[in-house]
């Protein structure tokens, strides 16, 4: 039993590593619930305005680059795969593989952010930043409601990107811990719960992509 040999990672107030792992996993899940509701407020706002101004949203959405959006979706889903494989490697105690997959995940995350900043730069150059300088030359009738769309676009993708940045930071710490040897086949729950977070961020994008990029593309 665990009382005989105290594992170095076991905190004093837990009885066993088992209990500690269950607690931290549950903790991360509960945290993700708050994240769902956090983005939920944005999705509610989006839903209402898209329902009110479908044409303006379609027109504004046409300003986004589907190709870059699709590439980013692929990049992010691939990073989820590498994350899942990292957890797998951690479970089996394959330290070298674990390090490789963590680096892959971080790299893909960085690629995503890079592409995202290119897109942001384009929007900036095209005066599509909401506010006094906003211009919507293509369909001037939609200039006001297109601002709503772009306000939502920037806040939604911006907060998503912020979560990615934090995710990459977490991955870096995980890489450090794995490299140092803290992570073992017995104690890998940090990798697992970081993975939960990473996958969640992926899921947010899975919704953002069709909602923002793919409105009325046939027109």
């Amino acid at each position, binding site marked *: 039993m665990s009382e005989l040999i105290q594992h170095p990672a076991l*905190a*004093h*107030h*837990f*009885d066993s590593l088992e*209990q500690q792992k*269950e*607690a*931290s996993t*549950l*903790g991360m899940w*509960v*945290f993700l*619930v*708050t*994240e*769902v*509701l*956090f*983005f*939920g*407020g*944005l999705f*509610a*706002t989006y839903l*209402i*305005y898209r329902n*009110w*101004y479908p044409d*303006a949203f379609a027109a504004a959405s046409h300003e986004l680059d589907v190709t870059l959006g699709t590439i980013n979706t692929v990049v992010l889903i691939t990073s989820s795969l590498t994350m899942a494989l990292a957890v797998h490697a951690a479970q089996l105690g394959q330290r070298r593989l674990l390090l490789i997959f963590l680096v892959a995940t971080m790299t893909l995350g960085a690629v995503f952010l890079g592409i995202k900043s290119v897109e942001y730069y384009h929007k900036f150059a095209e005066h599509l930043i*909401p*506010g*006094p300088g906003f211009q919507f030359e293509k369909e001037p009738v939609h200039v*006001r*409601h297109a*601002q*709503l769309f772009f*306000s*939502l676009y*920037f*806040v939604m993708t911006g907060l998503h990107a912020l979560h990615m940045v934090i995710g990459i930071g977490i991955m870096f710490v995980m890489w450090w811990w794995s490299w140092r040897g803290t992570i073992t086949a017995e104690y890998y729950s940090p990798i697992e719960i970081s993975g939960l977070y990473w996958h969640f961020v992926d899921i947010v994008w899975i919704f953002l992509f069709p909602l923002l990029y793919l409105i009325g593309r046939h027109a």
Partner: protein
Amino acid sequence: MASTALLPRRHYLNDGYGVKSWLLTRDHKRIGLLYLAGVTFFFFVGGAFAVLIRLELTTPVGDLVTDETYNKLFTMHGVMMVFFFLIPAIPSVLGNFLVPIMIGAKDLAFPKLNLASWYIYMIGALFTMYAIVTGGLDTGWTFYTPFSTVSSTSNVIPAALGIFITGFSSILTGLNFIVTIHRMRAPGMTWFRLPLFIWSHYATSLIMVLGTPVIAITILLVAAERLFHFGFFDPAVGGDPVLFQHLFWFYSHPAVYIMILPAMGVISELVAAFCRKPVFGYSFVAFASLAIAVLGFLVWGHHMFVAGQSVYAALIFSILSFLVAIPSAVKVFNWTATMYKGSVSWETPMLYAIGFIGLFTIGGLTGLFLASVGLDVHVTDTYFIIAHFHYIMVGGTIMAYLGGLHYWWPKISGRLYNEWLAKFSALVIFLGFNLTFFPQFILGYLGMPRRYHAYPPEFQVLNVLSSAGASILGVGYLIPMAYLMWSLRYGRAAGPNPWGAVGLEWTTTSPPPTENFTETPEVTWDAYDYQSTVDSRQSTFPAES
């Protein structure tokens, strides 16, 4: 009076003395005390604003402060009291101290996170205090758009940021409690052996975790609209200000239950302990907490009956609001029934409990007036609503908070306070409270709108009564402050169980050791099982006469 009890040799308070031992502590009991210092401070800050408000309203013309200042006073009173006192008060002070002890755990599941919550709370408070001292905030605690985004010239951004930050403290506390209650219970402590305090904190934590993120994002949107002229709620770009109200009340109505549910948990403990019998209908009271937490999320639209939402939405929110009244009524009936054939002591905490039940009943029943949509049209945004929610928050939450503080004070400090002074101040608070807020029901029905700096002269008599009550109430709050501080140094040692109550917290020393119990308790009894405790351990009760 036999007074042979001594403080234990080793306890959490003497486990280190330096500032560092407090500011870097991971002990949930010490963190609870850090919160106690915080919420007490902000309570008196918020209270000072209340004093000025009531002073101003003694005359109809608005001659004490300018209208601009008055608007800032009620805004900052609301912000301080709601976000920095009422929401954290019971969960973060009493809950923090008691949740692990009551379930037989050594600490919360995430002690570092718990300490971080306190720092986040203080940083949020710092932002808000900064907003206050550098000119104040005049949006009302509700931040309604477009006033808050395009019209107000006050410090909206720092105040909003402060509330945004403090929200995370609330989320992390809720998260910590949920995980702790699920994963850290002592052997034998099954769900239906948990004290009702734990059930109510579990329900509260659910609301904190599910509701707070929505206010966080809403406030962020307000800040973005104000700062970068992004449009979300601004009619100028086709936005809907009513949407802000939906998102705001999705959190802020359940937030009322964040304030009252833990108070209900305290009352269940008090009634059981001072009647020395099990709470009547334990499982109904427990599930009523969960029912309130769930139903509480379905009723937010009753704040918006006149705000321009659809008639049909108003009706749905109205009927759902009535449903949430049922579990609250069930609780009141069960507490009352608990007193039947009890051994009812009249010690201070019980006085608070009795006061709570009475005032909460009035607060709850006047809630029916507001849920009834046809009547709400007349009374909403008047002093009726002010009276109603002060009956819930001050008559309910603060009464329970003080009752709980008195009940567990011997556990927290290891010492007894002056019982007579305590009884006296409980009475003063009860009388002062009613004199302050009861006239406001009448004022509200007469039509005096809330947030008015000056008012028609015919409302003066009732306003003067209310202000007179407030001065009594203010004194009532200062007395406990004095004798509780006094007891810290001069109070008699309490011994492990001064009330003769059952519950795990009364089986350990007062104050408890850092790890709460010398050995992990094994629970074989139900909550409030006075009968078998007496049968097995006659010595539980102090031999006082």
